[in-house]
C-alpha cells in the first residue's frame, strides 16, 4: 500500500518535510517511486503565479521538439527551474532533462477567459505528451505531468528520500504552501511514471492508496464523457482525480458531494439529509463512479481546499493533525508527528467511513463533513 503525505500551510515550506514524513512511514512503501505536486508556490516562482508551468522530463531531442512546438503555439518561456542533479552522489541516474518551466500565454490567450486558457493548457499538455509517445514505445523523449499556473509536479522512480536528494530539494528546495507527496509501493503495475500519484488535472489534485476494484467501469465512464483530459489511466487511482474534476468542473457540484459520488449512502441512510432527493438522483445517475475501496484519497480542490475521504467501509488508514496555520494529512500518525510534533494530539482527526475532512487554503481549521448526518463540524 502506498503512503501518502500532504501538508497545507499558511507559509511556505520545503517538500523535504513531506519526504521526511514518508521516511517515517517507510514500512508502507517499497521505495519504488516518489511523486510530488507543489502548488501555491514560493521562492523563485512566487512572483510568477499567473504563468502556467510545464512540468516533466525530456531527452535532448525531446527538448528540441518541445521547444519548437511551444514556440509554434506562441508560448514564451518566462522562467526555468531545473533540479541540481550534478551535486547528487547517490545511485540514481538521470533519465533526461527535468524541468519546471513557466510560460507566458500566447498573445491571443492572455486576455482569454479562464475556460479558454484551461482548454489551451490541457490541449497543449496532451499534445506534448503525445509527441513524446509515452513510455510504451520505449521512447522517453517527452514526459509531461502538468501544465498549470502556480503548480509543479516532480516524479521519479526510487526511494522517496533518495529522490528528494537526487532533485537537490535538501539544498535548494522548491517552496510551496500546499505539497502532496506519495511514496509508491509498486504492486500491480510495471513502474511507469505516468502511473505515479499524485495526479493532476486542471487545478485538481488527488493521491490515493489502495486498489480501486471498480476501476474499469469508472475508467469507461470517464473516458466516454467527451472530455479530452480523461485519458491515461496507467494507475487505477487516476480516476479519483478525474471524478473530482468531473463533478466540480463539469457538473459544478459543491466539493462535499465528492463523497456522495464515490461512496453514496444506502437509501435508508439518507433520511437526515435535507438534500435527500438530490443525492438519491446523483446516486443513480452517477452509479458507475461508485468505488468500493479499499481506498483513502487525499485531494486538493481547484480553490486550494485540501480534503481526505475514505471508502465506504474505511478499509485504509488516514490521519490528520496540526495547528492553525499548518496541517498534515497522512497515511499514518507517525507522519503527522514528523511534520507537526507540537500539536495537540487529542485534536487529531481520523476520518471514518461517512466523513470527508476538509481544510481550506488558509489552513486555519479542519472541517469535517459527515455525509450521513449532513452536518459540518470544526476542529481547530
Amino acid at each position: 500500500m502506498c503512503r501518502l503525505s500532504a501538508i497545507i500551510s499558511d507559509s511556505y515550506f520545503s517538500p523535504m518535510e513531506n519526504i521526511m514524513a514518508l521516511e517515517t512511514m517507510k514500512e508502507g512503501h517499497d521505495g519504488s517511486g516518489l511523486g510530488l505536486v507543489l502548488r501555491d508556490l514560493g521562492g523563485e516562482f512566487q512572483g510568477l503565479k499567473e504563468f502556467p508551468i510545464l512540468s516533466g522530463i525530456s531527452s535532448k531531442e525531446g527538448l528540441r521538439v518541445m521547444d519548437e512546438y511551444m514556440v509554434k503555439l506562441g508560448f514564451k518561456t518566462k522562467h526555468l527551474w531545473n533540479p541540481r542533479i550534478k551535486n547528487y552522489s547517490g545511485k540514481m541516474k538521470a533519465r533526461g532533462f527535468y524541468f519546471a518551466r513557466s510560460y507566458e500565454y500566447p498573445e491571443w490567450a492572455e486576455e482569454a477567459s479562464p475556460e479558454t486558457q484551461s482548454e489551451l493548457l490541457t490541449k497543449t499538455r496532451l499534445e506534448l505528451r503525445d509527441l513524446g509517445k509515452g513510455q510504451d514505445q520505449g521512447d522517453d523523449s517527452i514526459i509531461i505531468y502538468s501544465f498549470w499556473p502556480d503548480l509543479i509536479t516532480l516524479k521519479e522512480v526510487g526511494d522517496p528520500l533518495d529522490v528528494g536528494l537526487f532533485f537537490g530539494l535538501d539544498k535548494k528546495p522548491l517552496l510551496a504552501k500546499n505539497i502532496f507527496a506519495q511514496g509508491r509501493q509498486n504492486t500491480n503495475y510495471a513502474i511507469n511514471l505516468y502511473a505515479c500519484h499524485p495526479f493532476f488535472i486542471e487545478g485538481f489534485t488527488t493521491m490515493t492508496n489502495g486498489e480501486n476494484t471498480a476501476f474499469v467501469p469508472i475508467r469507461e465512464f470517464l473516458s466516454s464523457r467527451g472530455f479530452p483530459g480523461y485519458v491515461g489511466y496507467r494507475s487505477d487511482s487516476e480516476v479519483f482525480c478525474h471524478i473530482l474534476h468531473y463533478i466540480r468542473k463539469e457538473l459544478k457540484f459543491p466539493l462535499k458531494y465528492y463523497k456522495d459520488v464515490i461512496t453514496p449512502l444506502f437509501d435508508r441512510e439518507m433520511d437526515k439529509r435535507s438534500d435527500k432527493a438530490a443525492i438519491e438522483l446523483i446516486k443513480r445517475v452517477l452509479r458507475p463512479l461508485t468505488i468500493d475501496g479499499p481506498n483513502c484519497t487525499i485531494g486538493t480542490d481547484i480553490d486550494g481546499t485540501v480534503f481526505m475521504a475514505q471508502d465506504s467501509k474505511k478499509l485504509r488508514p488516514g490521519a490528520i493533525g496540526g495547528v492553525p496555520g499548518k496541517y498534515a494529512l497522512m497515511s499514518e500518525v507517525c507522519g503527522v508527528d514528523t511534520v507537526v510534533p507540537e500539536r495537540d494530539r487529542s485534536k487529531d482527526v481520523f476520518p471514518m467511513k461517512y466523513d470527508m475532512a476538509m481544510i481550506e487554503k488558509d489552513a486555519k481549521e479542519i472541517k469535517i463533513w459527515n455525509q450521513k448526518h449532513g452536518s459540518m463540524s470544526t476542529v481547530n
Partner: protein
Amino acid sequence: MESKTRLDVNGQLTLKELPYIIHWDSDKCTRCGQCTSVCPQKAIEPAILIQRLVTSEGPLPLPQAVRQVGQGIKQVTDIERYCVGCAICSQVCPNDAIFPEYNESNKFAFHKNQGGTPYKRGGRRNSTEVSTLDKLKFTRISMLTDPALDAGRHEFHIRTLLGRNLAPGDMPLIIKDNELGLDETAFIPPVREIFPIRIGGMSFGALSPHMWEGLAMGVAYLNEVENIPVVMCTGEGGMPPRLLKSRFLKYFILQIASGYFGWDEIIHALPHMQEDPAAIEIKYGQGAKPGDGGLLMAFKVLDLIAKVRGVPMRVDLASPPTHQTKYSIEEAVAKMMTSMSMAFDFRVPVYPKISGTKTATAVLNNLARNPFAAALTIDGEDGGTGAAYNVSLEKTGHPIASNLRECYLNLVKIGRQNELPLFAAGGVGKTGSLAANAAALIMLGASGVDCGKYIMQAAAGCLGDERNRCNLCNIGRCPKGITSQDPRLYRRLDPDKVAERVVDIFKVADSEMKKIFAPMGRSTQLPIGMSDGLSVSDKAIAEQLDISYAC
C-alpha cells in the same frame, strides 16, 4: 407363394429410430398399469407378450423352458407417440420396473415431420456443448495487496436499476447555499431498484394456473418477507384480473406482444389499479424463435385462458411475427413506447425486448436517442419457449454473451452505459449455475438478467433438457403440470411448493452472487461492466468479449 409373415415394413420404425427407448423389467413389474396411464405420449401400452419361462420341479434341479402368453408393457414405434424420455413412468412405478434411456443413434429428426407438418415443441435449443457463459471464470481476486470483502460480514447491495437514467448533465439540480436541490417541476424518468435476476416472460396460458400462482406467490414473499425485490414478467397474455387490481401488481412487468393478448383486461383494469406495475415490456422478439410471434396452441386455450385473453376456446393463438403497427423503429416503436408511457402517466418504465441479433446495436442506438426507452432486453438463442418450430429453436438466434457485450461496449462508446440498462436473457442458468451466469453477464455489461427455463426446472421440476427430453410444453400435456391447462395434470403441481422453491432459488442466488463479488472487492454497487474480473481459457472468446485469457 406369399410368405406367412409380410416383410414389407415401409413407413414403420423400429425402437432404434426413436430418441428414447423404454427399459422394462418383466420380473419387477406387477402389471399395475400406472405407467401406461400416466404416459403423456401413450408411448407405452399394455401388450400380450410371449415369454420364455424356466421352471424346475422336484427335489433335483431339472430346469425346463416353456413359452407362455403373458401381459406386459410394449413401447410403440409410432412417431406421433414417441417416448419423450420424461420418465414420469419411472416416477409412478412402485417397483422401479421401468425407465427410458436416451438413444444416441436415434433418427428422430428424419421422421418427425409427418403429414407435411414441421416439428413444433417447447423447451430450448438442444445443445449439450458448454456455453460461453459457463466457460467464464472470475479471476481477479483481491489478495494480499488489498483485502477481499467478507460475504458474511460486509453489507452487499445486490440490486440493479430498471429504467432510463438521466444523462449526468441533464439532472435537474439547483445549487443553493452550497447544497444541491432538485427542481421538482422537472420530469425524471421512472426507475425501479430491483434484484438483478428477473423471472422472464412466461405467460399465463403457457404456464398452468398452479405454476403461475406459485411463481407469483414466491415473488410476493421474496419482496415482502425476504426483502429481495425480484420482479416477474407476465409474458404475453395478461394476468388474472384480480391480481391486476391488487397491491402485488408492483412486482410484475406487464408484457405487451404482437397479439396484444390480455391487454383488453389490462386496459379495463387501469382505473382500478392500486399500484403501478414494475415496468412494461414490449416484446419484439424472443431468443428461442427469432422472427416468430408467440404461439399458444389450441390444446391449451381452455376456459380460463380464453377469458383472460378474450378469445374463443380451443383455437391456436398465434401472435404475428411482428407488431402490425410497426413501420420503423424511429416512428412506430417510439410511438408505442410513448403510448405505453402515457397510459401509465409516465410513472412506469417501458422498454423493448428483442431476440439476440447482429442488428442489436442498431436497435440500441435508436433507443439511446429515445428518452422514453427505459432499457433493452436482449434474449439469446438459448432462451426457452412454450411452443416453437424446432427449426427456429435449433438454428436461428444469436448467442447472448457476445451480443450483450457488443451492445454494452457500444453504449460505452457513446457514453450512455448508465443511461440505458441492458438486460440479458437466453441460457442463464442452463446448467444450473444461475448466479455465476448472471454475474458473468453483469460483468460483461448487463444491468441484470432474465431466467425462465431455469425457474421451471428448479422451482417445479421441469423435466426438459438439452437432449430434447419431454419438451411437450406446446401441446399442454406437461407431465408435471407446469405448462398444462388440464386440471388433471396441473393439480399434480402444488403451488405452495413452487413458491417455496422460488424463494429458495433467489435466496441462494443472492448468497452466491455475494460469494462471487466479495473476493473481487465489490459490494456497494453491482459490478456492471467490470470485465477485468473475468477470464476465459479460449482465446477467440477472450478476444471477442474483450476480456483476459487465462489457462
